[in-house]
């Protein structure tokens, strides 16, 4: 009889340990972003300040030691936004065209093509990085935000096409045929009937591709060489590459935490909205 009640207690203890493990880094990030003096220590600050955010947007200057290091945090935010938005636009346009075609066309080897897309799309990026670098030199994509976005978008296409095709499959063919009977041209039908019906699918694809463009690290890492063109991900990372290993107090913790917080919030929102589809992509089970 000892087993049953104590199970609950053990459960709570394990849960508390797991929660502590998860919350501590995030708590540090959040507290340091609003603290007047930041450091790698977790300490409740005496006062709350928005100065770190002002530094991020270039409205105030760094006061302490690391001021010698030039930071372009406001530019990094803009760059990340450009990459994310271009990725979204490119992905949405290409994916809705391809998804519609794959949903309506019937041809031999279609399922083979879809599976091949999926398997090839899951190949690791790290193995492709080196030739991609050489390829991008010839395309002039070095230090080019649009180029970075296009490369990121190309990696997203397979899984997103699968998702989009699933949404188009739900739109009955009869609907289009009725529109034709009422005298709509093919293109008009596409824009006025099919695309509005696929709205939710387009939203999902847009969210997912924005998330991917916003958070991507490896593609800008090899393609972007100028500090003013860094996206946030690369910016945060290089601050540590300048000071590898035990960083101590050399890094401007406060502004970086504020920047991280700005960086985290959009992806967190989008993650919780589109979680179901992210899981489907991870699992490789994309029939929506």
């Amino acid at each position, binding site marked *: 009889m000892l087993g049953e009640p104590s199970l609950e207690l053990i*459960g709570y203890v394990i849960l508390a340990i797991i929660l502590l493990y*998860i919350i501590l*880094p995030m708590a540090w990030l959040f507290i340091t972003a609003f603290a007047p003096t930041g450091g790698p220590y977790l300490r409740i600050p005496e006062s709350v300040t928005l100065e770190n955010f002002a530094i991020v947007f270039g409205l105030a200057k760094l006061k302490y030691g690391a001021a010698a290091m030039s930071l372009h945090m406001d530019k990094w935010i803009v760059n990340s936004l450009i990459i994310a938005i271009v990725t979204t636009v490119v992905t949405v346009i290409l994916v809705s065209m*391809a998804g519609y075609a794959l949903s309506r066309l019937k041809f031999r080897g279609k399922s083979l093509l879809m599976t091949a897309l999926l*398997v090839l799309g899951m190949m690791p990026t790290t193995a492709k990085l080196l030739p991609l670098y050489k390829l991008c030199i010839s395309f002039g994509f070095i230090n080019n935000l649009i180029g970075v976005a296009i490369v990121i978008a190309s990696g997203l296409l397979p899984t997103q*096409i699968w998702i989009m095709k699933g949404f188009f499959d739900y739109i009955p063919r009869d609907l289009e045929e009725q529109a034709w009977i009422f005298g709509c041209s093919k293109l008009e039908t596409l824009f006025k009937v099919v695309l509005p019906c696929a709205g939710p699918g387009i939203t999902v694809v847009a969210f997912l591709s924005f998330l991917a463009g916003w958070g991507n690290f490896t593609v800008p890492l090899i393609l972007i060489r100028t500090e003013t063109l860094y996206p946030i991900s690369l910016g945060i990372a290089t601050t540590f590459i300048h000071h590898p*290993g035990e960083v101590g107090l050399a890094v401007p913790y406060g502004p970086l935490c504020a920047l991280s917080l700005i960086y985290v919030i959009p992806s967190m929102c989008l993650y919780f909205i589109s979680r179901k589809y992210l899981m489907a992509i991870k*699992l490789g089970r994309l029939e929506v």
Partner: protein
Amino acid sequence: MAFGKKFEYRLEEILLAFFLIPALLLFIIFQIVPTLWAIYFSFTDIALYGKKLFEYDVVGFKNFEELLTDDIFWKSFTVTFEYCFYSLIIRFSIGLVASLYITSKLFKGKPIITAILMLPQALPGTVIPYAWLSMLDTRYGTLNQILTFLEMQPQSWVYKRAMESVIMVNCWSGYVLAMLVISSAIKSIPQEYYEVCEIYGASRWLKFTKVTLPLIKWPLVLSTILIFKEDIDDFTYVFMLTDGGPYYRTELLSLYAYHKAFTYYELGVGCAVGLVIMILVFVLTLAQIKVSRIM
């Protein structure tokens, strides 16, 4: 008339096929071509400096022979598997415990805690090592403060315990995958099974081992494959935390490829390592698709 209709249908098909072209073209140029190129490069002596970037020769399996005799490659091979093995165990067990928590009716405050449990994966990849580097700092870091508070020896995390630190950070965001896969599998078990158990007065342990476990067998296998596949080409966390150091003790295969190519400028060797990773991931992907079709 019939011919005309058929012709129109074919025309529409051709137009639709044109819709496919831009996406396929972009995918082929920036994903397939680099992949094939990487395979080709791994058989050449291409390098990232001077003439060798443009005038390179096919050297057959020389790069692979070089890898086989390179101690650092074998070191990084064992390091990768060590990393994958411990990450797998920790990610899997935390994920399993968390999913049992999410699906059980026993505990309180579930919606909030479920959201918190899912948070780590919602963060962008570069913020996580950044937040953890401060946790792991030797003099001021929170982790060492806790250890001092518990009257234990503070550790030099990123140096002396580099592997443990890297695994700890990887598992911090990684367990969510296992948690979501397993919890959705548990949720899909019909409630009647447990009701029958109640009637026969089965204990919790018996319910778990005789009902839950057999029914979530394949999701468990799937999450193992997925975790392994994710870890085998891990790059960002280790790159930011230790950059493979100290003395190659955390040099994962992907980092080894990156260093070979961009630090030592031996692009060909780097691509050969990339090919090794690619083959491993390809096999795991096939296994994953197979398992997820069984489910």
